[in-house]
């Protein structure tokens, strides 16, 4: 995160607690019970590497059976989150943060234990999801919206707002491959964040575009987070986590620490 942006974010003050649920809105919650996830890696014989890798702090644990190498990405992770919880995930590369996010999004099936999520999930893990470079900006917004579960009518209703937010104007009618990287990022960001979600999953805080757009994007993301009941944010930036999260969990080799208050982050890091 850029220092200027951080200052702006700090000036905006800490996140407000989410609005109380309206009327009969179902409760929002995440529950992981004894969640274990192993990746089978096919066609790789890691036996010879196993001993050397065992001493390394990066990555999950390797094991093998029946010729298939197993990477234990998560083991016996148990935690519970309720509306208003903003959980920061910390840990080395390969400690299982992204895997946990993907398990929460429903893409990865647990090998043991269970994941239960109440509420609409939005996973902002990969902004380029569903982006087709040869299609126009408008078509990409529509497609992305469809993947996110919006109906054609809902998308048409929001199209103007999304288009305005990208600030790309007439370029939206042109193929995305003619965009600069920054323009593509604007489009992807605007389309990906045009969702209503109760549970927001993020792999690193998203910062895209030039300074001006970053401000806009930041505000939009904050709004999205405020509307969502639960945020799970994986990041290496501890200041950022202090700013946006009220809880923190550390993953190490797929093993999770208990969920602790963000104010105890230093103790958690020292542990």
């Amino acid at each position, binding site marked *: 995160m850029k220092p200027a942006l951080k200052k702006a974010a700090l000036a905006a003050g800490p996140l407000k607690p989410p609005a109380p649920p309206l009327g009969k809105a179902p409760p929002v919650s995440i529950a992981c019970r004894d969640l274990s996830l192993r990746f089978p890696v096919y066609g790789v014989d890691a036996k010879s590497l196993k001993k050397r890798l065992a001493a390394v702090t990066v990555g999950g644990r390797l094991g093998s059976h029946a010729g298939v190498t197993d990477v234990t990405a998560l083991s016996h992770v148990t935690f519970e989150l309720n509306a208003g919880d903003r959980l920061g995930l910390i840990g080395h590369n390969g400690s299982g943060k992204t895997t946990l996010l993907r398990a929460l999004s429903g*893409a990865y099936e647990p090998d043991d234990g*269970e994941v239960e999520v109440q509420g609409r*999930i939005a*996973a902002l893990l990969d902004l380029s999801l569903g982006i087709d470079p*040869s299609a126009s900006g408008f078509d990409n917004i529509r497609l992305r919206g469809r993947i996110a*579960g919006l109906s054609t009518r809902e998308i048409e209703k929001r199209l103007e707002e999304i288009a305005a937010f990208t600030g790309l104007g007439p370029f939206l009618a042109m193929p995305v491959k003619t965009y600069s990287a920054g323009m593509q990022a604007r489009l992807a960001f605007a389309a990906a964040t045009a969702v209503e979600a*109760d549970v927001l999953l993020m792999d690193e805080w998203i910062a895209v575009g030039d300074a001006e757009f970053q401000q806009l994007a930041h505000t939009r993301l904050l709004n999205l987070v405020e509307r969502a009941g639960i945020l799970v944010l994986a990041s290496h930036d501890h200041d950022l986590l202090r700013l946006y999260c009220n809880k923190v969990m550390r993953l190490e080799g797929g093993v999770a620490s208990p969920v602790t208050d963000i104010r105890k982050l230093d103790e958690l890091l020292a542990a």
Partner: protein
Amino acid sequence: MDTATHMLRTGRRGALFEFNMAFQDLRNSVGRLGLAWSLAWHDVVSRYRGSILGPFWITLSMGLMVVGIGVVYSTLFGITLGKFLPLVALGIVFFGTISGIITEGCDTFVSAASMLSQTSLPMFTFVWRTVLRNLIYLAHHMLIVVAVLVFYGYWRDTNLAGALIGLVFLVANAAWISMLVAIASARFRDIPQVVTSVMQFTIFVTPVFWPAGRLQGAKHVVLDFNPFFHMLEAVRAPLMGVPIAPHTYSLLAMMAVVGWSLVFGVFALIRRRIVHYL
């Protein structure tokens, strides 16, 4: 991303539970058939963006093939063009659909890797996407079918209801093969090559370019045990106003039931692994 408001994912809890989850995947995909349609439509549009004729390019090349093969082979076989050309035209169009659904099945999950690894979209959605995409192409090729049937006067005898029933049988069977191939291709990357070769081989042993009657004694192994022949015949015969062998329907129905049971079983048992293959 998902609009579902409740999601529960658990570890293996026995075969019955796995079948239940697979069934849930199927049910969710049917509820979101609109998404499969949007994806399929997008595929068609994006493949032919910037071309004037669009998918009609395949129609055009099929049309050329029909005329070429029709003229040459009708002379070789000594059959009048009026009898032979419609047979070849319908053969090429509908075999094209069968072969398209199956060969493009290889790509069903592989091309959806990024979506499958970060959303909880049902996996069946991508199978329907492949099937629907090929049905969109077929709709374009109907131009050839209609032209030939009208030009040679077959339209008077066309049994449209029979052809539609045949199409349902055709799709029902091609779809399960497509899904089987999709799962296999995700795990073993040699499968697409195998499938392409098999489909190439099949087009020559199936009466696409030649009339079935030319094979000595119509009860030939190549015909009776060739599922593609029955799939093709279920649509082609009614369109040409030819009576269909009654065992074609029972065979196709049996094949669909057995095939879908097999594929669904395989899917149920390895569903949670597919995303890791990709």
